């Protein structure tokens, strides 16, 4: 008997399904602080300043330009909103980058060539055509992997990942085709041409993306929480077999959900073309991977993503400012900071999902309980 007991490992790990919200939030906050401490120590070694001046620089740097901070948050949020329904379904859509990029490309194509062919075109009509074109192309990019996933169970992670690179190279091709100077950049489209296809200014150029991101978030919140579609998505994510037994057409749900993601990416691509960059280049859509981290961090909850996307943008902006302030000659410091803090958050997720039970103590308490019972008798 004693031999078997000695062989038992010191602890074992069990699933912890019923953790309170407060506790899980607490664990995450501890992880973020642990990450910040490591970042501070790293900064101390690399920069030679004390950690507190680094933290305060980070804080100051993030809030120097509040509007840009908010706009970047809104952009990251929209990318995240576009991917969460798929993620909720456990469909790993890594292709938001590419979907937004081709959407933007389609918008720019309309913007560049329609006013040349039809000089009389009204701006609102042009904008509408751009939006529709962007959504259609973006949907093609997201639905093709969905169709193959639904009918042939093609690995969607790899497929959507590859679609990103097909998008990047396609954009490269068109940019070189349209731009005959050979510079490889398109420049600002229609800058000197009455700014056709540009969104009218709302008085504040940052406002439009922020407003649209809030509308998208609200829509997605309602869609996921209060509609039959949202329920079906959650059920397919939980268990495909259960969903089949209940009579849900899983194929339809997969394709429909990715179509929704494509529409959101299309809107975002249109925003880039008409309001943010007025051009297309390979940097557009670069937020897609960060958005995956943000969506995951928010546990695929659209409202929680308001906070996580703000947090990540805050980290990035702040740490970029550190490298300017302390003359590191490198903006890549922010990648290191974001990476380290994410590692801590990823690691802490373990302590939320599982709990560690120490076997030794467990036995002792059992024994003492038995003893107590005996004594009681």
């Amino acid at each position, binding site marked *: 008997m004693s031999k078997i007991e000695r062989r038992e490992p010191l602890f074992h790990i069990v699933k912890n399904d019923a953790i309170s919200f407060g506790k899980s939030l607490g664990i995450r906050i501890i992880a973020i602080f642990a990450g910040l401490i490591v970042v501070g120590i790293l900064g101390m070694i690399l920069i030679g300043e004390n950690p507190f001046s680094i933290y305060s620089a980070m804080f100051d740097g993030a809030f120097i330009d509040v509007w840009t901070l908010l706009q970047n948050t809104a952009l990251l949020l929209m990318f995240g909103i576009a991917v969460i329904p798929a993620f909720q379904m456990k469909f790993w859509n890594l292709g938001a980058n590419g979907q937004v990029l081709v959407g933007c490309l389609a918008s720019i194509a309309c913007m560049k060539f329609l006013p040349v062919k039809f000089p009389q075109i009204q701006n609102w009509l042009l904008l509408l055509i751009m939006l529709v074109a962007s959504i259609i192309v973006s949907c093609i990019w997201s639905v093709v992997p969905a169709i193959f996933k639904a009918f042939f169970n093609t690995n969607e992670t790899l497929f959507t990942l590859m679609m990103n690179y*097909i998008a990047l190279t396609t954009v490269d091709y068109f940019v070189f085709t349209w731009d005959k100077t050979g510079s490889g950049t398109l420049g600002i489209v229609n800058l000197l041409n009455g700014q056709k296809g540009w969104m009218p200014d709302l008085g504040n150029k940052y406002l439009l993306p922020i407003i649209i991101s809030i509308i998208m978030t609200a829509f997605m919140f309602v869609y996921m929480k209060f509609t039959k579609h949202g329920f079906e998505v959650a059920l397919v994510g939980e268990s495909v077999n259960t969903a089949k037994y209940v009579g849900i057409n899983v194929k339809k749900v997969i394709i429909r959900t990715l179509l929704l993601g494509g529409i959101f990416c299309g809107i975002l691509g249109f925003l880039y073309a008409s309001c943010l960059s007025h051009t297309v280049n390979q940097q557009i859509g670069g937020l897609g991977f960060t958005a995956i981290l943000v969506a995951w961090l928010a546990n695929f909850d659209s409202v929680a993503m308001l906070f996580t996307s703000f947090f990540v943008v805050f980290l990035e902006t702040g740490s970029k400012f550190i490298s300017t302030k302390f003359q590191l000659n490198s903006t890549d410091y922010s990648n290191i900071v974001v990476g380290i803090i994410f590692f801590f958050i990823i690691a802490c997720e373990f302590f939320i999902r599982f709990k560690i039970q120490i076997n030794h103590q467990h036995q002792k308490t059992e024994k003492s309980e038995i003893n107590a019972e005996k004594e009681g008798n």
Partner: protein
Amino acid sequence: MLTSVIVNAIRMGTIFLFGCVGEILTEKAGHLNLGIPGIMCIGATGGAVAVHLFGGKVSSPLLVLFAIIFTMLFAALAGFLYSFLTVTLQANQNVTGLTLTTFGIGFMKFFSKRIYDQKFFVSLSSAFKNLFGLEKNTNPFVQIFLSHGILVYIAIIVAIICAVFLNKSRRGLYLRSIGENPATADAVGINVSLYKYTFITLGSAIAGLGGLYYIMDRSGGTQIAEAPIDSFGWMAVALVIASMWKPLLAAFGSIVFGGLSILDAMLTTLPLDKQKIFAIFPYLLTVLVLIMTSVVKNKNNQPPASLGLSYFREER
């Protein structure tokens, strides 16, 4: 012309081959490591550190050896971090991998900018190139087979060893069974975690060599901080699929991918936009292979069945 295309295709392909063979080992253990681009960057940084520390102080073969050791060490550490997070802590593999890539790119650019000295690195790059000293020989056979740097040959040897290991050895069978169904492997008595740790770390170390090869051999030490190693890393991930998880096929595939990615630089007579179209082909090819393997359900060409899923023993 043709000879020079083939020679350059082989050399370019070597970057992808290292990353690809490393990723094959990882994926055979059931883990989709999207951190490979970052790991290649971290490996390149390790190599740069070694060159910075030992360059000019030791003989060239020793320098190459040290660079390889440093590269593998740095990359293995990154791989170990990934395995700790995804195997022991059961973290989501996609998220962990993408974070590692973000971190790795920042890591390379930040640190290599501080130690990089172009003249110094270029002068030392000859140690890595041209193993047999036959680079000037114009015989096509010599050019294609004997004119490369040592890392090109290492890449091919590693690919062959991996192929033999995976298909002919008992341990290779165990590894494949873990990628297919870890619960079954566990029930048979295979130490699942140990295998996963070993092969994810080893795979990362191999992938890291791709980064070293690029900075010291392919680019000849001319660029480190701005090297586009991450985009090569994604190409390597694509090659894993295109080669249907077979290291030997990957060796040939790497030459095809390498050829397609240098073709635009070779066909300078074509207009610029026509050149650019070749860059799409590797990814299109990958998607086609991915679709075909899933439509034609040939069980020899499938991705590992439990790819991307973490294994928790108490969950059945």
